[in-house]
């Protein structure tokens, strides 16, 4: 399972990466594997505000639906429109082409340190019995 060192994570299996002053957010390789074939990603309109660990969307696989939680509070400034027609990008490339939203953090200094690093996320997976 791929858990890149340079990303931060939530226990709900989202990842976050700062690009200049925006935070890019998606779901982890583990999450896409658990969901299986992803057929639909529901994302908010740009301009939407979201709380830390607030729901920002839903990802649907053939098997199930799963809520998406924002690692940081802020304003969503861009969503990945490619996922409308190609939701399978989340399966194929969860950390690159399968990104979901870009968010302008409103409370970065306080929120960011609460996220897990790669080792911390790996520990969460190990605790939950996932390997």
């Amino acid at each position, binding site marked *: 399972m791929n858990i890149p060192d340079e990303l931060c994570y939530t226990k709900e299996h989202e990842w976050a990466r700062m690009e200049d002053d925006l935070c890019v957010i998606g779901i982890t390789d583990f999450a896409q594997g658990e969901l*299986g*074939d992803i057929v*639909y990603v*529901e994302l908010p309109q740009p301009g939407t505000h979201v709380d830390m660990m607030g729901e920002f969307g839903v990802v*649907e696989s*053939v098997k199930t639906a799963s809520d998406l939680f924002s690692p940081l509070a802020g304003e969503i400034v861009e969503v990945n429109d490619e996922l409308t027609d190609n939701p399978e990008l989340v399966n194929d490339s969860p950390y690159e082409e399968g990104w979901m939203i870009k968010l302008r953090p409103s409370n970065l200094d306080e929120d960011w340190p609460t996220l897990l690093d790669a080792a911390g996320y790996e520990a969460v997976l190990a605790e939950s019995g996932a390997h």
Partner: protein
Amino acid sequence: MPFAGWEMPVQYAGVIAEHVAVRSAIGLFDISHMGILDFAGDGVREFLDGILTNKVSDLAENQIRYSLICRPDGGILDDVLIYRLPTHYRLVVNASNTDKIVDWLEHQNTSQHWSIDISVQNSALALLAVQGPEATALLQNMVGDAADLAAVRYYRGTQAPFLGNTITITRTGYTGEDGFELFVPADDAAEAWATILDQGAPHGIAPVGLGARDTLRLEAGLPLYGHELDDATSPFDAGLQKFVRFKNRHFIGKEALLEERQLGPDRELIGLELIDRGIARDGCLIVVAGEDVGVVTSGTFSPTLQKAIAIANVETGTALAGTTVHVRIRADLRAARVVALPFYQRPR
């Protein structure tokens, strides 16, 4: 994933890939969780004919029928296959209903003063399904000249040599494709599984889990107990009246179902194709002109149609084919087109 007391794989390679393998080549399913009940004793035929909604008494040797088992009020206890094998009758019932059905049958056995021997065969027999357009060719190769599988008609079976055993092979399935189901001695099941996969490799065979079993049966419009069927649903509500045979026989639930036949069912199952984006799942409400008229019983993404599909249970006549209804998915109402079932029929 735990399922009705069994450890079952939801998927092997992925639901969509497995689904496509069944539609285009072959899929292999381990469905040994299905309850396998064998019957012996005097009057088995009459005993079963007095319980099943479909007729048992005129089954030919190696013929199989789909049937329901109903309560006296017509509510469905289970949907089953009844087999008249050369030596005895067999029922295959839903895994989650096995205990309930055995109890129900034993209760009838005692209260009606039969002395039928009912034995659950799940320790002795595994059940494998080989489904898809290439299934006949693969299995014919494996059984050799001793049986002509192409000559076995739909819902018929045969006994044939298979990897050292003589087994019952039936032309049945739950996928909407041509194919067979094989009763294999449990001790040899692992070897049979591996050998079928090995010999099926040139055909593009794939092992298939519960996830694709569900998407395949849904496309084929086949009901699943606990979703389209339950003890509050009658065969008429579920559109299964052709599996209820009234004439010259008595079975549990007959009076209630006769009355319902006269009055007409107040519920019906419809097919939906989502127009708006999203997937309608079990439990989503169906809204027509601002009124709740029913509920989604099963929904998924159809790998064949490449769109979201669902089966819904609605008040009769409220959602006509060709019209647009709305499905409440989370907070939103999404448009869906009412379509005829099934969603998919294999090319013949």
